[in-house]
């Protein structure tokens, strides 16, 4: 056993305090059993071929401690927002003002105590991934996260923010778990953001259930500590004519893997799965997207872009599965990378498994460097080289940033991305 596996095994043996509903106990027990059986994946595992967990495996990651008073003062998004810090909801920083009628938001742990019946049919049952080490750890060890319900027909214009903060004086891990339920014809926007300080693993799972005709924009902004490990999984189950627009922006952490698993189970459901990652130093930023076309006339659009500097590595694996009978499926996948240094690496791996005959599936992508002719054009107009490079790099990224719907979130993503780009501070505000 590696030190990390050893530490997790000890935490699994301790378990979680009793008094939880039977279905949660069963979920935890299955998770414990799975993790102890599969343990942390190595690069022999198909899904981890390009991403080594050696640095994580070598660490004994304890349980996160309650945040000390006067610790990191994170800049918080406007309400409504839920803040989770080192395992638990942070009541003082959470502010749910501005939620419209018919929308409920709060702590998943509290909801499990107060009305488990609303959660039982959904938690751990929407999509799932068999023998998934990190998913299993989350099942077994999660303490809290968000539980969000948008009632049938509600329209929640203001973005609801879920903020996950980690501060770790000693190497530690936690496993936030959230459940988002969007009712029939309801519309909303959710923004998850991750940040922190120290050496830690944040292993988050968010499950999303979209009822018929529901629509959710779901942004995920990862700005964890440069020394941190980030594992994220988003599972989305979509009923007929629902729409999910997900975007993962991966900026922080030493090693980050975000998995998006979408199950298109009702006819004419559609999803956009977008991603932008900006890596430097020795960062590894990895995305795995699995779209399961289980019903006819569904559409999926995947667009991922990476900007890689230093000796960083970007990984994108996109799997599209079209089940027998899922006729008129329309699936596309594009993955493009911009390499800013000779040592940066991009791995891109499309996998299409098509078991229906009347479908439209495409994939494509590029790996390239900044265009010399474009650089010369900008410089010939008096723009200094560093600024010209920043402009072209931003131009590559901006397409993804502009896809973020709500203006305030877009501004925030824009600032966060620019702050990571070489020369980003040279860019002036757009007119």
């Amino acid at each position, binding site marked *: 056993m590696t030190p990390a596996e050893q530490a997790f095994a000890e935490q699994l043996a301790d378990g979680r305090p009793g008094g939880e509903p039977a279905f949660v106990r069963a979920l935890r027990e299955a998770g414990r059993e799975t993790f102890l059986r599969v343990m942390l994946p190595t690069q022999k595992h198909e899904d981890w071929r390009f991403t080594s967990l050696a640095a994580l495996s070598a660490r004994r990651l304890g349980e996160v401690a309650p945040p000390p008073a006067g610790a990191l003062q994170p800049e918080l998004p406007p309400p409504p927002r839920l803040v989770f810090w080192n395992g638990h909801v942070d009541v003082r920083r959470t502010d749910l003002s501005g939620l419209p009628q018919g929308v409920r938001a709060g702590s998943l742990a509290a909801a499990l105590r107060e009305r488990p019946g609303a959660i039982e049919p959904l938690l751990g049952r929407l999509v799932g991934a068999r023998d998934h080490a990190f998913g299993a750890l989350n099942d077994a060890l999660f303490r809290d996260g968000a539980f969000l319900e948008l009632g049938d027909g509600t329209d929640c214009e203001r973005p609801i923010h879920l903020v996950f903060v980690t501060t770790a004086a000693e190497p530690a891990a936690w496993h936030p778990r959230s459940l988002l339920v969007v009712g029939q014809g309801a519309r909303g926007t959710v923004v998850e953001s991750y940040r922190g300080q120290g050496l830690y693993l944040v292993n988050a799972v968010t499950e999303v259930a979209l009822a018929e005709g529901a629509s959710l924009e779901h942004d995920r902004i990862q700005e964890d500590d440069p020394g941190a490990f980030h594992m994220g999984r988003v599972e989305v189950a979509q009923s007929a004519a629902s729409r999910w627009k997900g975007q993962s922006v991966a900026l922080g952490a030493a090693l980050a893997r975000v998995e998006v698993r979408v199950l298109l189970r009702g006819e004419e459901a559609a999803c956009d799965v977008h991603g932008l990652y900006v890596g430097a130093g020795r960062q590894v930023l990895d995305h795995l997207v699995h779209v399961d076309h289980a019903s006819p006339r569904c559409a999926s659009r995947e667009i991922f872009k990476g900007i890689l500097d230093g000796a960083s590595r970007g990984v994108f694996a996109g799997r599209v599965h079209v089940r027998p009978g899922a006729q008129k499926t329309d699936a596309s996948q594009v993955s493009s990378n911009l390499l800013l240094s000779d040592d940066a690496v991009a791995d891109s791996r499309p996998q299409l498994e098509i078991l229906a005959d009347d479908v439209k599936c495409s994939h494509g992508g590029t790996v390239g460097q900044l265009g010399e002719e474009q650089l010369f054009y900008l410089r*010939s107009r008096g723009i200094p080289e560093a600024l010209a490079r920043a402009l072209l790099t931003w131009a590559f990224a901006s*397409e993804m940033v502009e896809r973020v719907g709500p203006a305030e979130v877009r501004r925030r993503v824009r600032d966060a991305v620019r702050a990571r780009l070489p020369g980003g501070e040279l860019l002036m505000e*757009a007119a």
Partner: protein
Amino acid sequence: MSRRPGTPMLEIKGLKAEVAGREILHGIDLDLGAGEVHAVMGPNGSGKSTLAGVLAGRETYRVTAGSVAYLGEDLLTLAPEKRAAKGLFLAFQYPVEIPGVGNLYFLRTALNALRRSRGEEELDAMDFLTLAREKMKLVGMDPALAHRSLNEGFSGGEKKRNEVLQMAVLEPRLAILDEIDSGLDIDALRAVADGVNALRGPDRALLVVTHYQRLLDYIRPDRVHVMAGGRIAASGGPELAHELEKKGYGWLQAEPPRAAEARP
């Protein structure tokens, strides 16, 4: 008739340049004074565009011999952006498309970079917009192109107008126009020429690179140089362009260089 003030704005002496190990320019001599317009004509492959690229600092070309002085300073050691800061401008034969960079955003960035390098105050967004609108009207550019990505999906004529717009906003002292007329119909050509002519003045100079005499009906040159095989094969007054129009470029190879002949 051109005046010849004391120091030429641009002095090219014995300039040789190669690309990928192959010499393209075999020794170019050319003087251009303030207030003057010179045309550089010649057949395809004669080295006209290479000359323009070398002057603007295109890094694919390597200068192997000779010198270029601009306002008395060695031009060849300067980075492209420094050349621009000193007032040099190249209108591209093939303007580059840059998706994701807004047309006017780019132009404001360029103008403010130039102003910064000269110790001048930057223009704010409102003042810049006023200036840009005025210049767009001058070059007859469709206002819809203002906020599109730089040259992305522009027609050939729109790209060339955009070059002239940039020139009108950046107000260079020495503008090199590399086949600004290629691919333009007569109306677009006239509009582009009007924009260029509006910039002429006693402190400015133009080097107009073109294949065809037609452009020179609209932008009247003081001198015409004819390039062939990487050399200046002939220099003369505006009448030389008309001579070329009649005789074509074929006779050049047969005659010895006339570069040293007296100015009209």
